[in-house]
């Protein structure tokens, strides 16, 4: 194990993880940069169940290119196959153009995307917690995927189903409801209880 960081969840559990994993969070990174004698970072707003899920995500994403940078921007150091093989390597392949031609990089990123999509196929309550954790800890990739998970829950549902999923009230006035019914009559029944 390389240098490790100790994190304390809101409910007092301690997690020790490699720097590369923990530093996916910009908040943890900046807290660790300040001289912290104990190397213990408290995270009162994240409980252990959520933190362990978050760290599972971070572990998968450590040492991987962010799936949300364009392929062309993946530097060759992160390529799983980077071995400078004689026949394949070309001096004209600058690091910025590396993965456009590198099949291994492309495949690795695609695999990671698949893993991410599976990761957020969870109940909405967990997504909600992941969203808050990703926001609080400033983890870009996790925020992106949790948002996608929440958006997926919305897709294909009618308004009442969406309200149930997100525990929301129909707070339109009767006049407003009438207007909306007129505008969206082409949807199957926006206000079906």
């Amino acid at each position, binding site marked *: 194990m390389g240098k490790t960081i100790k994190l304390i969840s809101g409910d007092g559990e301690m997690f020790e993880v490699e720097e590369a994993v923990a530093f996916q969070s910009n908040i943890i990174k900046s807290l660790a940069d300040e001289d912290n004698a104990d190397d*213990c970072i408290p995270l009162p707003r994240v409980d252990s169940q959520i933190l362990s899920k978050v760290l599972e995500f971070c572990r998968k994403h450590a040492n991987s290119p962010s799936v949300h940078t364009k392929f062309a921007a993946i530097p060759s150091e992160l390529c799983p196959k980077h071995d400078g093989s004689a026949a394949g390597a070309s001096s004209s392949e600058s690091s910025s153009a590396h993965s456009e031609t590198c099949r291994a990089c492309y495949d690795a990123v695609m695999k990671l995307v698949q893993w991410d999509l599976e990761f957020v196929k969870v109940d909405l309550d967990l997504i909600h*917690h992941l969203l808050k954790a990703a926001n609080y800890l400033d983890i870009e990739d996790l925020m992106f995927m949790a948002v996608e998970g929440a958006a997926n829950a919305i897709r294909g*549902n009618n308004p009442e189903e969406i309200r149930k999923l997100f525990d929301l*009230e129909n707070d339109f006035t009767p006049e407003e409801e009438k207007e909306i019914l007129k505008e969206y009559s082409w949807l199957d029944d926006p206000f079906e209880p």
Partner: protein
Amino acid sequence: MLFLTPHSSSQTFHRTVCLLSCPSSASAMDSLPDAIVHHILCSLSNARDVAACSCVSRYWNEAVPYIPSLYFPRNSLDGAAAADATIGRMVASAVCLQDLIVYCPFSSASLASWLDLRCGTLRSLELRMDGIASKPASGGDDEAPANELECIGVARGLESLKLWGVSLTTSPNWNCFDKLRFLEIIGATLRDGALSDALHACPNLTDLALLSCNGVATLSIELERLENCRLDFLGPGNCSLHLSSPKLQILEIQGFSWIRVNQDHHIRRLCIAKSSGRVYKVELGKLPDLEFMSLRGIQWRWSAISSILYCASEVRHLIMKIEFCGDFDTLQPFPEIDLVDFFNNHPRLCKFEIHGALFAAFCQKNSLKNLDSKFVIPYLEEVIITVRSPLNAEQKLNTLESVLMYSVKLHRMTIRLSQMKNCNEAADDFFKDICKLKYMNYNVVQIE
């Protein structure tokens, strides 16, 4: 640091330290910061989903207009009494609309009104035009129909434009899309002049694709920033292409007989195909950055093949599938291609795929007995050979054996024996010999 004892109910603990923007409500999503709710809504683009969200609650209704993308799939408004009006209302309320995709049918008059409204923010537009209902011609007789593409010209900030099933036979009269980088036109009927005018209005394109199009005889492209060019023109006719783009990296074309590319370029991926008709001439200048090349077609003039092979000395991955050569209607077999010369001229070849008649043309004019003992095929790792007839079996086997012998890095040779043209004893003998070859080189040779 002392460890705190875990609370028995982590959920309650968690909730009480959450920032609640709506303290009176205990509902889950309400406690999400506004920015996150916006983020989630902005991930949606399907018109039905967006419309559904408008009906969920007041807050969501107010947030929906900020969604930047709207996508109307093919059947999304089936049964809607006035689809155009529905699209119009949604476009009107999307105050910062950046991406608009419409696959369901619409009228060109409506399109003009939507673009007028949103031209200030629109960055990407994708339209299926084959269902478009035009304004009726004012004279009512044989006047040319009002130009459906003209109204797109008002969206001056467009960066990406994709049109399906369009008819570009008269000039669209666009001014200038100086931000347009991606242009894709699919399944279109074109005319030289109209296409040329359209391209003139897009001087800063980096990616151009004209696929499954017809109606062009001559195409001349001069684009300073073009990097990626894909052209697929249907029909057996003799199309000619003249291309001048100093930043060109990828060129994939089908359907041209005369091809001239200004030699100032950086082509690394090149595909030239002609699925019906003939390729007469290919002029590309040198290809110093070439990595991948694919040549396909029924009939190419031999001089076109040999000139392009000559220029492609740096190629690493080469695919050749051409049936015949010949200048005119008569289909001719290929002249002999010397194996040693071929591999000496393409020393960096790493993957090689060759079919039928072209493979049959490989021979060994330079007797290998007199060969410089340093002959080697240095980087070849994978070979795929399709054999279609047992004619000249001995020569073919010699070629296969030589490739095996002189390739120091070869780890896979795949021999595809597709329907043998002459099904007789000769075919069986040939097949037996190939199998023998396989047994002697079992770790490399594979038969399909």
